[in-house]
């Protein structure tokens, strides 16, 4: 697909107007996903309660604020708040990361919004819920992810058996909460249609981290056994782990009997498929240590590339353990257009990890998200206010009184 054609076809969310008052990653990421799908996402920044740019690194800005517009409104300022409410009246969705008391202070609570902007879908993402009952740990945008991962059981499941638990390599409760926020918002948008009903969506990162426990949680409900960490392994399947090859690590996941036989054949140990001790998943997991000692020296003899090719031919699910760079530069990643290049304000090009969506409409057109650089803070203030019907004079007045701005000092 060439870029011009992709850009010409509107995204599935074209026409959806979103106001994002994100103060951390989860809210910003929800905005990113909506913007990637073609929504008009206006990031409102400024004031004590809106985004705190000093805590947002340049990398985060590039990763999470692409394809958005930015207006600077001081939401603490009484007039700024009026501007925000007018902006909401022109919008479909409000996305924020406020607790209930903050929403009340800002005049964005349910009661106020239901009267002032009755058609709005209002979504809040918070670490532990909008109004937690129990005392929750005090967290900020730096510490929330680590604390939620620790409290939810996610960290305890990550690491080697007997070794320390580890934080996940990506901020999964932040990103997961962002995705769930999008699911809730779009559910309400699709369901609300033109009915003009106020919808409230609440997402707690802690709840999302708990949901990630999925089958392991229900397994515990079933038999009372709490699973523990197993390195790259699996509680009920072996082999299902990384092996050291001569020059790196390779993962194998022969998760059916057929794949197990293929794995044995590919490693020159077809004889093991005849051994009663290793006949099924239950027996292999029981004999895990013995089998590990048996296969480790075999896997160590060849390179990762050699094993990947051997396992491909033998029909065994397997793959190399790639670095972030290796993953981003993998031919398949590039072929799938997942690292789009885009122009920065300074005239340089950079890349991002792109959006995974590919839509092919029934009329033969396609939509693949492209990337427009993140906006400068306040870059779109004047344009957005003009669209709302403010003339030049009024905008100048709002700027002069400090309610809005075209820039923000860092």
């Amino acid at each position, binding site marked *: 697909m060439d870029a011009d054609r992709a850009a010409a076809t509107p995204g*599935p969310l074209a026409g959806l107007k979103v106001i994002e008052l994100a103060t951390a*990653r989860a809210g910003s990421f929800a905005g990113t996903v909506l913007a990637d799908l073609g929504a008009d996402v206006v990031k409102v920044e400024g004031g004590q309660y809106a985004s705190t740019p000093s805590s947002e690194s340049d*990398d985060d800005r590039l*990763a999470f604020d692409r394809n958005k517009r930015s207006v600077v409104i001081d939401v603490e300022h009484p007039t700024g708040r009026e501007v925000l409410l007018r902006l909401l009246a022109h919008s479909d969705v409000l996305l924020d990361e406020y607790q209930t008391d903050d929403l009340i202070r800002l005049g964005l609570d349910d009661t106020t919004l239901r009267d002032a902007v009755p058609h709005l879908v209002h979504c809040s993402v918070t670490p532990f819920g909008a109004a*937690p*009952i*129990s005392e929750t*740990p*005090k967290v900020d945008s*730096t510490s929330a992810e680590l604390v939620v991962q620790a409290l939810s*059981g996610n*960290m*305890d499941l*990550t690491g*080697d058996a007997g070794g*320390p*638990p580890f934080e*996940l*390599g*990506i*901020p999964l409760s932040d990103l*997961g*909460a962002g*995705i769930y926020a999008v*699911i809730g918002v*779009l559910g309400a948008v699709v*369901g609300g249609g033109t009915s003009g009903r106020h919808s409230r*969506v609440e*997402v707690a990162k802690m709840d*999302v981290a*708990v949901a990630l*426990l*999925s*089958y392991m949680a229900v*397994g515990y409900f079933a038999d009372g056994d709490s699973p523990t960490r197993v*390195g790259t392994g699996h509680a*009920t399947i072996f082999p*299902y782990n*990384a092996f050291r090859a001569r020059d790196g690590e390779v993962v194998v996941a022969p998760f059916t009997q057929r794949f197990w036989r293929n794995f044995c054949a590919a490693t020159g140990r077809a004889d093991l498929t005849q051994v009663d001790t290793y006949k099924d*998943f239950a027996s292999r997991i029981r004999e895990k240590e013995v089998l590990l000692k048996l296969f480790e020296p075999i896997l160590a003899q060849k390179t990762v590339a050699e094993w990947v090719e051997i396992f*491909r031919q033998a029909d065994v699910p397997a*793959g190399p353990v*790639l*670095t*972030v*760079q*290796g*993953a*981003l530069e*993998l031919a398949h*990643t590039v*072929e*799938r257009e*997942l690292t789009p290049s885009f122009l920065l304000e300074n005239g340089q090009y950079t890349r991002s*990890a792109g959006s*995974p*969506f590919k*839509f*092919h409409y029934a*009329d033969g057109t396609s939509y693949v998200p492209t990337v427009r650089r993140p906006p400068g803070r306040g870059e779109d203030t004047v344009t957005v206010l003009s669209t709302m019907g403010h003339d030049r004079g009024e905008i100048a007045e709002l700027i002069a009184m400090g309610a809005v701005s075209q820039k923000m000092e860092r």
Partner: protein
Amino acid sequence: MSLPLKGIRVLDLTRMFAGPCATEALADLGAEVVKVEEPRVGDPTRRNLPLWGPESAYYMSLNRGKKSITLDLKSPEGKRAALELIGTCDVLVENYRPGVMARLGLDWETLSKVHPKLILCSLSGFGATGSLRDKISFDLVNQAMAGMIDITGDPEQRPVRIGVPVGDMAGGLYLAVAALAALRARDRTGLGSWVDLALHDVLISLLSNVAQRFFSTGETPTRTGSRHRDLAPQGCYRANDGWLVLSAVTDEDWQALVGVLAAPELSEDARFVTAQSRKKYEPILDDILEKRLQECTVAQWSSEFAKVGVAAAPVNSLKTALESPLVSEREIIFTAEHPTVGPMRNLASPLVLDGHRVGTGGISPVLGADTASVLREIGYDDEALAKLADDGVIRTTA
């Protein structure tokens, strides 16, 4: 409470984890999800351990709130029924390897001609295009090939995988997003669409800020244990009875931490004046912290740090987490009566809509429980159903 997707009908050909996760999210929002299962054993995860009575906990976690019908899609009769059902649905979801839908005669090319309003959501390991399109995938393989394993664990040790099936889970949730976005587009344009989504692509997307670090610096980020990439102290430490995490990177929190540790010499140490400098001398600082933290219990430290507002928490096991008030008060775990299991507990959705926890009470279906009722709706009478059962196209008894 009226759920937003009430009236939306989904035909679900998925099995294993990622696909069922997508349709479960749609069922949570009120869509009618009709899951089509192979008549002999159904979704292979129905056999996954541990079992709960006659059902699999794994299957129960990923299929609550759905209907189940059996249908042999490889038989002409089964295919005919499936095509008929597709005509009654808004969304068709599948997670076969690319090419399988075409072999079944259910590919987008064919379907969109007959049903231009249909939304087809396809989820595979590597997508319908690209050199790895035919590669078999599983969560572990996807995690490995998207850099997730290399960035998880101790930098001095071998990497570990992310303990939860992040590839499958994220893939499923993104597919639900795609289905919803496609429904919104159809409301506007009247046109259906086909979404080609890959687990690999979703994980690459989730590298987000980590990927950006590579693009900005040209250096590949690797694992950091549980440490912050730029600031200190933040990480996971051993107390005398377990592990705890703590974060005290701001100067205010750092001073508060020093106060709790009763180690005033640290606040005067020039190496530890700023978060960046503390990061530079992190190994030394971590040694000091580890020695001191091992003197008390996780609970003692958590309580001391809470008093001064320093972010700290125990590393909970799955069991401790699920039984903690932070979870139970959220009512994300529910109890319900399953027809063959009896009283059981399950997780609901993390979404709260209009003040109500979504997904509460949803039961996973017994294999083929809805075959007769669903097929009757499209005109099969008792005689026709008996013939399908005789021919092995549907399952007779559960």
